[in-house]
């Protein structure tokens, strides 16, 4: 009787279930967390940014090839002193609410973006003025020449309708966002889904190809895999290598892998706890680079799914040159010889901080680094700390003379991680090298891309001969994509744009 009752219950619930896709081409994409906001200046995390970008356009866009291409600006000029940018705006563009796009909206985007309550107001306040020359010409001024200003705009300045924003304010705007983007906001159920439909008046009449996009929040990676296995979603992102392997041979699902623009490294200190240690000798720092078996770490801990990092300039970055930038070889003999040359034939003892559970498999990585170095006589005492403590103080004050960390970049070049980890005074800078500092500052104000690329190469040379870090690895990202999805090209920073994605029959 009990059994019959159960069966009846299951059967009646099955009747209520219907989870087939509608006839329309609606792409369903997983999000690993509920976006904090759909207003770009408050959508700092990758998940929120990805969902938001379907709604907006920028003046210039950094495309999948890393080139700056026109979007809401059809043309732009940079003054000779590199301080003034003059944009010619696209005419006849309307926002989802019908408001026409003009120079005033660029001003509003800048004004509201720089609000102190946002995540990174600095992305907007880097421009000291934004003026309308006429309805379709905008002049933007920066205080100093800024190499990545256009990239910063491309990555952050989602153009918003000024009149609407001034009428409702940031909070209400975030609840019902409006842009000029390929998709327009329909609804959002907190913790569950965000629904968008194609913008019928998109300025590029060919786009978008889809009728709509639906984002589903699924925080557990194995559930994201189940979701794509059952056909309930088309794209399942942020999978572990094990889960990605479990999908091999699955009908109708392809596994996509690409390198993340993130470098894991062991930082040396020549300030704080690093003063007076053997690390001050460049030969010792080279020895430690030769003495860490990064290839073995990648094989053993990441099943081969990571790239050995050649330095801070990595594959996909401006200035990267595969032929000239090989990672340090694993050469314990050479490491021991260098140590002996530096006056440490028997090695030495040293402490290395590790952010416990701060990143995927980082505890194992810290231990493997210590083990590798132990083999060349450098006895590493791994100091595991909770991430709250680890990242709460200026890094030079936290732990021993070395510490493990990672730094990403989403601008297609190494500049943010170079600045973050090498400009004195920053929280994570523990290595002071005036020559490197000068080079970074020069890169920062060099607007010409080719010149900048050459500077990155010079930078790489210096960072190899006088290494401020042990370069470890660059992780691989795994996503599962339904076979009928076309034109999906995520970028190295885990960013994706759905405007030119389509669903095959």
């Amino acid at each position, binding site marked *: 009787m*009990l059994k019959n*009752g159960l069966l009846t219950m*299951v059967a009646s*619930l*099955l009747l*209520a*279930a*219907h*989870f087939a896709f509608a006839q329309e081409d609606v792409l369903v994409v997983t999000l690993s*967390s*509920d976006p*904090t*906001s759909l207003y770009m200046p*408050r959508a*700092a*995390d990758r998940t929120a940014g990805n969902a938001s970008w379907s709604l907006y356009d920028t003046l210039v866009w950094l495309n999948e090839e890393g080139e700056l291409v026109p979007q809401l600006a059809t043309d732009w000029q940079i003054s000779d002193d590199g301080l003034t940018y003059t944009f010619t705006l696209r005419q006849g563009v309307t926002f989802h609410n019908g408001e026409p796009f003009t120079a005033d909206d660029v001003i509003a985007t800048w004004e509201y973006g720089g609000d*102190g*309550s946002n*995540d*990174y107001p600095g992305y907007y306040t880097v421009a000291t003025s934004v003026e309308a020359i006429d309805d379709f010409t905008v002049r933007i001024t920066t205080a100093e020449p800024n190499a990545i200003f256009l990239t910063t705009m491309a990555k952050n300045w989602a153009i918003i309708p000024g009149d609407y924003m001034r009428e409702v304010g940031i*909070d209400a705007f975030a609840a019902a966002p409006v842009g000029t983007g390929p998709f327009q906001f329909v609804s959002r*159920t*907190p*913790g*569950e*889904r965000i629904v968008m439909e194609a913008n019928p008046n998109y300025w590029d009449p060919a786009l978008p190809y889809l009728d709509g996009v639906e984002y*589903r*929040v*699924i*925080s*557990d990676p*194995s*559930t994201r895999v*189940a*979701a794509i*296995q*059952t056909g*309930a979603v088309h794209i399942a992102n942020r999978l572990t290598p094990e889960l990605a392997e479990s999908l091999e041979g699955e009908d109708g699902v392809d596994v996509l892998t690409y390198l993340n623009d993130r470098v894991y490294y062991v930082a040396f200190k020549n300030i704080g706890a690093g003063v007076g240690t053997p690390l001050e000798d460049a030969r010792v720092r080279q020895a430690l680079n030769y003495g860490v078996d990064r290839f073995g770490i990648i094989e053993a801990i990441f099943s081969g799914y990571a790239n050995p990092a050649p330095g801070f300039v990595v594959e996909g970055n401006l200035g990267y040159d595969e032929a000239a930038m090989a990672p340090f070889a694993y050469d314990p003999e050479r490491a021991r010889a260098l140590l002996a040359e530096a006056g440490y034939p028997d090695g030495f003892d040293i402490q290395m901080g590790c952010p416990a559970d701060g990143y995927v498999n980082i505890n194992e990585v810290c231990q493997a680094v210590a083990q590798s170095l132990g083999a060349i006589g450098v006895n590493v005492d791994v100091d595991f700390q*909770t991430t*709250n*403590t680890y*990242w*709460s*103080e200026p890094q030079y004050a936290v732990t021993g003379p070395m510490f493990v960390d990672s730094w990403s970049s989403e601008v297609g070049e190494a500049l943010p991680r170079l600045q*973050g980890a090498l400009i004195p005074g*920053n*929280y*994570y800078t523990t290595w002071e090298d005036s020559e490197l500092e000068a080079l970074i500052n020069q890169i920062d104000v060099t607007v010409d891309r080719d010149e900048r690329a050459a500077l990155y190469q010079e930078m790489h040379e210096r960072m190899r001969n006088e290494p401020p870090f042990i370069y470890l690895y660059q992780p691989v990202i795994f996503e599962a994509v339904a076979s009928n999805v076309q034109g999906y090209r995520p970028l190295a920073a885990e960013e994706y744009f759905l405007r030119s994605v389509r669903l095959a029959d």
Partner: protein
Amino acid sequence: MLSYVASKLLESLALIVGVLVLVFFLVRLTGDPVALMVPKDAPQEQRETFARMMGLDQPLPVQFAQYIADVARGDLGDSLRQRRPTLDIIRERLWPTVQLALGALAFAMTIAIPLGLAAGLNPDGWIDRIARTVGLAGQTIPNYWLGMLLIVFFAVELRWLPAFGRDTAASLVLPAVSLGFAGLGQLVRLTRSTVLDVRRSDYLRTARSKGVHATGLAWRHVLPNVAIPLISVLGIQFTYLLGGSVYIESVFAWPGLGTLLEGAIRDTDFPLVQAITVFIAFIAISVHLLTDLLYGWVDPRLRIA
């Protein structure tokens, strides 16, 4: 009765104050809140501005007094990431969690109570053996593991039920079963042992010796006496399900308080974490209070005590 109610109310109030103290200081023990909340590469001045804005530059006792005053006014603070009142956010996510907890409780009760009764009335029979196995399984199988197993079997292999989300009534089945299974185990064991106790009692022996029919015995004499401990356990179960659904909600992408808490922890949105914890504790205490009062009403002996 009045003094019983008053003493229970006082007890609950003391509990709430205890929870507030605990939550406030535990959150601050986990690290410097400013470091948790500002971006990793924020300059020092942004850190200081932030600390001032949040009142985090004040001495701890001052911060605590301010916090208690705010809570008393029903203000649990603003979410750091979403920049709106935490209570508004909690309200949006409350119903799915209640729904899931009710579903789990309904599932557990529907199976556990008849099974436990049948087992207790026929100890050592085959039903009893099933009941004891279910009881043990419920208490030992971790619910998130069961959840994943159910997803693989019923969603991925058989395609009978959705693997995640809250789209249709069918979406509730797998999460409710996974969440309710532990409660089911406990309920079966409790029902069974209570029936056994009651059957060994003097009043039942008297009734039996008077010649009351076996069915009459079960309905008139056993059931009402089993109901009393069950009510209190159901109350505890419900609050446990409300607070304990974090894993299950995450496994099934169920948009309730559990996934909200998980996200808040990941985003280091500590006012939100604090608010959810206080909120769940508040509900748990209220339910316990209600259970106690109901208990007193069902069992007149307690009103006098």
